């Protein structure tokens, strides 16, 4: 299940629905990415996320397909927000389900690395000191390199 939208993300509700969808799995891992109020410079009021459809969705779907081929996961879910997202709100939710825990952990980790460094989004941070476009950092790229 993949959704890129301006709708708020309710991680708890998504996890509940995912549990039903993944019935029979033994291990579910979820990741919630939340907009922090502390940024590189000053306090964050909100982020603005821009996507380019359908390239954004196609790329995430391809990453989900790759995860399914690399690990024996039975279900995967990615929901990502675009538009204006306030500090404290959830920007991304990923869940993976498999028979055993290792596949779920690794697939969720892999999907997040994709989303942070390769997914087609542009991110603008509005802080009390002004606006700035944020691009992935070195640690994000290093994380993503682990799966090559």
């Amino acid at each position, binding site marked *: 299940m993949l959704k890129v939208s301006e709708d708020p993300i309710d991680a708890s509700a998504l996890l509940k629905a995912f549990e039903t969808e993944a019935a029979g799995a033994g291990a579910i891992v979820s990741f919630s*990415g939340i907009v922090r109020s502390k940024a590189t410079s000053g306090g964050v009021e909100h982020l603005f*996320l*821009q996507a*380019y459809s*359908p*390239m954004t969705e*196609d790329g995430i779907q391809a990453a989900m397909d790759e995860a399914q081929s690399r690990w024996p996961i039975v279900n995967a879910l990615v929901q*990502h927000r675009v538009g204006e997202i306030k500090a404290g709100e959830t*920007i*991304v939710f990923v869940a993976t389900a498999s028979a055993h825990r290792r596949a779920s952990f690794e697939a969720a980790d892999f999907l*997040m690395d994709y*989303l*942070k*460094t*390769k*997914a*087609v*989004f*542009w*991110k*603008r941070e509005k802080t009390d000191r002004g606006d700035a*476009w*944020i*691009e*992935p950092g070195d640690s*994000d790229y290093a994380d993503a390199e682990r799966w090559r």
Partner: protein
Amino acid sequence: MAKLLYFGRLSDITGAAEESLTLPDTISTAGELRHFLDLRFDAQGALLEPTVRIAVNNELCFDATSISETDEIAFMPPVGGG
């Protein structure tokens, strides 16, 4: 006219996220358009950075890729969500 999209920080330079442009006769590839626009917006090389990728009709392309009046051409600085 071709539809041009400028994503992320590039829209700060171009002043708009989107425009329609009649391609000059001298321009037949994505790379030529990139150079033309960098001069036109006085972008001082921001559009020429190798990390800025170009997509034609939703497919990433090389600078040598041919473009035409009916294309949607997107200029994409480094991406990342989450």
